[in-house]
């Protein structure tokens, strides 16, 4: 690796090439500022969606209707889903991409800085539309985040606001993805071939292609709902020759890759964190790259496994069952590779590693229940039950969110130049880990025993586990306030971090940049051998 490249720029970092205060963030084209804004935005949305989750769990604490009206309950489940997926998890990983990709490939910034600013600033208006829709006549969309018609045709104007929000969010994702692809393909330091890129960069390259491919499909689906609602078309209205199931095909052609849009960058973070704390290179780098790419390609070919109960033909059910099971192979390879990376390493268990191991455990459980759900006859029993709710929260929360926590604790010292409080970080992990399982593990039992999802009230035999789940959910929600405290404390009064606080971390941002990282990452590209 080349020698330090950043001698002359130190004074350059703080001085005023850029405005300060609010205007700094409104007009910034800097990948770090934008990354920071993405992450804070995602956290704000995470808390918003989290409050909605707690309203849901409070209502489900006991049988009977206590605190919500069923229609408001349906608004909560719909907005919780939309906000968490589009407002919290996706922007969080774009935040990571912004911060890390230029630093990890040895570039000064993203390829299109002004576009970068625009992709971020599209998000707040879109999120506002979703939140404001709660207060319009008829309330927010109450048809679930999957927005199946004909129910969505019955909704009030909250539905239109949600459609426009999705259009804007989709635009933001597409612009961001174009930026990421261009940056990775054109701005790598000399010597950094594609197969030398850190795995996090690889996962984002693949994810960005997925986003460009499927966000327009979602936009198409919701636009058809919009014209069915207002302009007399009958895409989904059988009385006019339409087909409600068509929407599901189009939606899940977006929706299944979307699962991997969330999961693949999470894999990337884990693939950086585990080697660093094992003090040993990632096992099977090449097979990791191929496994990730296979997962991405397979994700386009399995969409109708969300639709086994719609009455698609037997032949289609068989095909989608086989294709879906196949995803277990590359996913298994990834898990085996991570475990092999830890094998005979020199392990230490700082907070990022704890979250990574937590991810490994729980994501694997989510993967296994995914295999159970891939098998058509079993899925027909479990479809639209709490088993599915448990499954995708193991993938989305214990998978994506835990990996985001791992990434934040891992890179925070490089970002802000200060360490977080290790002891509190570990508290955060253990509280999250225990309460998460309390909230979601019992939901497997509820689903198996026959409790449908998306119901505000339930039969008495489901009472015990729902109570446990609600207690777990409140514990999990409160634990995240500890996370906020840890971050604020680190920013305000954390210990000063060394350039390379993790001895096993060996990517460019640790080896070639001071801590905190300078405003323009690499003004002269490092030479990678």
């Amino acid at each position: 690796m080349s020698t330090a490249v950043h001698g002359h720029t130190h004074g350059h970092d703080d001085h005023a090439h850029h405005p300060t205060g609010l205007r700094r963030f409104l007009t910034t084209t800097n990948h770090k500022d934008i990354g920071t804004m993405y992450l804070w935005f995602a956290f704000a949305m995470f808390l918003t969606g989290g409050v909605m989750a707690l309203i849901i769990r409070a209502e489900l604490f006991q049988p009977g209707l206590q605190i919500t009206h069923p229609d408001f309950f349906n608004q909560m489940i719909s907005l919780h889903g939309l906000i968490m997926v589009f407002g919290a998890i996706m922007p969080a990983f774009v935040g990571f991409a912004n911060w890390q990709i230029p630093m990890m490939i040895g570039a000064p910034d993203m390829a299109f800085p002004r576009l970068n600013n625009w992709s971020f600033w599209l998000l707040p208006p879109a999120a506002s539309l979703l939140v404001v829709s709660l207060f319009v006549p008829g309330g927010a969309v109450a048809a679930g985040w999957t927005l199946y018609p004909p129910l969505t045709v019955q909704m009030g104007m909250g539905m239109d606001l949600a459609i426009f929000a999705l259009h804007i969010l989709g635009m933001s994702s597409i612009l961001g993805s174009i930026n990421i692809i261009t940056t990775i393909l054109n701005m790598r330091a000399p010597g950094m071939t594609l197969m030398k890129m850190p795995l996090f960069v690889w996962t984002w390259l693949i994810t960005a292609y997925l986003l460009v491919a499927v966000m327009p499909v979602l936009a198409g689906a919701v636009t058809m709902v919009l014209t069915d609602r207002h302009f007399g078309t009958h895409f989904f209205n059988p009385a006019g020759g339409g087909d409600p199931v068509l929407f599901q095909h189009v939606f899940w052609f977006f929706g299944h890759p979307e699962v991997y849009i969330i999961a693949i960058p999470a894999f990337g973070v884990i693939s950086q964190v585990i080697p660093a704390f094992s003090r040993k290179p990632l096992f099977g780098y090449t097979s990791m790259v191929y496994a990730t790419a296979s997962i991405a390609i397979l994700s386009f070919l399995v969409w109708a496994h969300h639709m086994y109960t719609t009455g698609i033909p037997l032949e289609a059910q068989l095909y989608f069952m086989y294709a879906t099971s196949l995803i277990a192979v590359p996913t298994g390879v990834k898990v085996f590779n991570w475990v092999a990376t830890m094998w005979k390493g020199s392990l230490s268990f700082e907070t990022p590693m704890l979250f990574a191991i937590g991810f490994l455990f729980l994501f694997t459980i989510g993967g296994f229940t995914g295999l159970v759900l891939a098998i058509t006859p079993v899925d027909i029993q479990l479809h639209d039950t709490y088993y599915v709710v448990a499954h995708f929260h193991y993938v989305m929360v214990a998978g994506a969110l835990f990996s985001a926590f791992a990434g934040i604790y891992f890179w925070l010292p490089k970002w802000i130049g200060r360490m977080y409080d290790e002891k509190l970080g570990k508290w955060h992990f253990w509280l999250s880990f225990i309460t998460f399982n309390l909230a979601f593990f019992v939901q497997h039992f509820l689903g198996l025993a026959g409790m449908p999802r998306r119901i505000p009230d339930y039969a008495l035999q489901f009472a015990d586990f729902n109570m446990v789940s609600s207690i777990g959910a409140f514990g999990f929600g409160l634990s995240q306030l500890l996370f906020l405290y840890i971050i604020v404390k680190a920013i305000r009064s954390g210990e000063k971090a060394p350039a390379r606080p993790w001895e096993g971390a060996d990517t460019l941002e640790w080896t070639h940049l001071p801590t905190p990282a300078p405003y323009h990452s690499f003004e002269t590209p490092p030479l990678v051998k």
Partner: protein
Amino acid sequence: MKRNSGLTKRTIGSRLTAAFLAASAAPCLAAHARFNLQQPNSQLGQDIYDLHTLIMWVCVIIFVGVFGVMCYAIVKHRKSVGHQAAHFHENTTVEVVWTVIPFLILIGIAIPATKTLIHQRDTSGADITIKVTGYQWKWGYQYLTGEGEGISFFSMLATPREQISGSAPKGEHYLLEVDQPLVVPVGRKVRMVVTAADVLHAWWVPSLAAKQDAIPGFVRATWFKAEREGVYRGQCAELCGKEHGFMPIVVHVLSAEKYAQWVSEHKPKTDTAAVDVNKIWTLEELVARGEKVFAQNCVACHQANGMGIPGTFPALNGSAVVKGPKAKQLDTVLHGVVLDGKPTAMQSFAHLSDVELAAVVTYTRNAWNNKSGEAVTPADVKAARSKSGSAAAPAGSSTVASVLHAAR
């Protein structure tokens, strides 16, 4: 078993303790329905149950294997015990092995899964075919062929609103009880052809292993063959709006003799509605009957106090339609409300009988602050119907032949 909905602290505590104990004992109680699929009541259900058990064990074994290795590494290969990191990072043989073995395991799972699925999708050779239609928010059943042909009825939640709001203790079958259950004979193959009138629903009875989305404009089929007599309960499984959680399914499985008896009691008789029309109803009788109809069909949106949900469902108390000419109100209940060419949540209630419609309209015109003192008679409803040509035809008007043809 009656349970008071106002739980005391102590019962919450003891239930929690019980739940924690139960959850921690989960693996050894795996066969118990609390932690597993419901006890199946059909061969198909048993096949699915066994398939699920097989996959679970495969998953458990792999999980224990993989994380056994990881836990060993966590204990033995930690820096704090002085373990030095090795430097290997590749091994093609290992990579091939752990790609191929999962693939073979998947094939092992796919074979029984394929067999079960082919069995599950074979709806041929049914003894009885019943059409089920999902409505917001009730089920309509129509016996199309086989013993019982011609019977049709609606089935809706029988749990009183007071139990849901908590002002009355919850019964044993809270939310899983209906006014009129589906009745089928034991040991006979019953084909359910499933459709919907408004939005998506899904007809699901877990212990019979039958779940099928109900799709407006399309007819899909599923089937079951119950092995034991008894009462089996399920719910709508596809979000269908506000009352999605409140449209259960109850199936009574009877012996052949009892089923024959049920059929003879429920075969369509001479037009009972016509007898009713000739009866002279007093205002009080209509209001009393109408209150019941209102409680079954209207209260979910318009609310018991007639005030609706502001901004979502309009109030009937003081409503211009309810206080206006009866022709307009009859038109509303018979045809629903269409705004800007779009159907609204106010659907058509033409499937109710003349007496029921007359009663409920009369009730709304005399309840709360609406004191018209005016009775709308079944004859009025009949006249309104004949003017617009909307017959009382439960569970859709498509012919048996076309339904059977369309169902796959």
